[in-house]
């Protein structure tokens, strides 16, 4: 429903991006990275679903466009995961405003346009990449002995690491459920030609 989604998006933006609440999220590394940033991307995604035309998957170009859009979102999120830019967003309101705008417009919005256009293989690829990145980053944050961000404490870094490993586990499970129990795979496998049918 149109108004429902725009309301949720507006609500997310209000909660995540408007000071002083925005600063509250940013006061903690875990809140900044795992709550504010996802909320901004989600807000952009919801807005994107309102404006993106539905995909015409018969057209090959649409799929390539989908890949471009998801790549754009990936680059954007990756950029803001660089510790120095996370720090910069805390230190400067201008950088923070750029962070908020780009995460909504260059990550969330293209994701809404691109994801429905991805084929199952590309989706699986993105999903598995996300899991492995979460594991790598999680282990890095968990075990790195020095502070990666000047604005945050080292113990928060460890908490973030554990949370990221948790996210990796969740993504793995969420990806596995449809594979194991989903409608496409729920149907019995084609019978072996020589299989005996019990009366």
């Amino acid at each position, binding site marked *: 429903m149109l108004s429902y989604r725009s309301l949720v998006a507006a609500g997310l933006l209000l909660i995540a991006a408007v000071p002083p609440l925005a600063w509250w999220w940013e006061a903690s590394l875990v809140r900044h990275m795992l709550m504010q940033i996802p909320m901004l991307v989600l807000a952009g995604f919801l807005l994107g679903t309102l404006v993106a035309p539905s995909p015409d998957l018969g057209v090959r170009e649409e799929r390539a466009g*989908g890949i471009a859009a998801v790549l754009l979102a990936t680059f954007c999120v990756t950029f803001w995961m660089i*510790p120095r830019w996370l720090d910069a967003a805390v*230190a400067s309101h201008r950088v923070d405003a750029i962070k908020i705008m780009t995460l909504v417009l260059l990550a969330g919005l293209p994701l809404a346009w691109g994801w429905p256009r991805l084929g199952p293989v590309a989706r699986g690829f993105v999903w598995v990449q996300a899991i492995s990145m979460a594991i790598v980053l999680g282990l890095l944050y968990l075990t790195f002995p020095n*502070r990666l961000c000047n604005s945050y404490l*080292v113990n928060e870094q460890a908490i973030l690491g554990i949370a990221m490993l948790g996210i990796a586990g969740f993504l793995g499970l969420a990806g596995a459920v449809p594979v194991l129990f989903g409608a496409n795979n729920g149907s019995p496998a084609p019978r072996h030609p020589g299989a005996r049918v019990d009366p």
Partner: protein
Amino acid sequence: MKHGGIVGIMVVLLFGTAALWWGSDGFTTFTAESARRLDVARSPRPLPAVALEDQRGETVAFEDFAGKVVLLNFVYTRCTTICTVLGSEFEQLRDEIEHSELEGRVVLVTLTFDPEHDGPKQLARYAERYGGADATWHFVRAPSMDDTRRLLRAMDVVVVADGFGGFVHNAAIHVIDPRGRLVRIVDSDAIGEALALARELA
């Protein structure tokens, strides 16, 4: 627009990689700490002119050290962890300076970022832990919190409350040249490097 999608992928790859390249100084600088060190080394920064007060309660300023190299560190005197280490490292530096031709040409300044707690008395007591202040080593504060913030900001020093009544901050040796510009930042335990730089600049 037959190949619009493919072109799109190429453009995104190009601009995305360029953005990450730019944002990490060519994939070398991922933390704010290394970024500020690189930036200072590339373009030296003048320090804001602020009134300082030393451990005797006398007014000093960075201009008073003009013509000399200043090795500066930031502490707060209640600190029981890293600042203690910083102190003994500066103690070693003073030893090296006072037993070499650098005496009188290189000074050490320990600046507190907690001027509301650290007055001259606290600074003097902190100095006593390392053999006291002398002509080489000065312990100062910027009495006004605004001036302290200006100084921290000019050098991109970030101080974070640790949740236990203390602070966490970038511990480093800030090298200021005889013209009063911050020219280099090195690790707090890089005593040899700091001395070599001082020798070069003095």
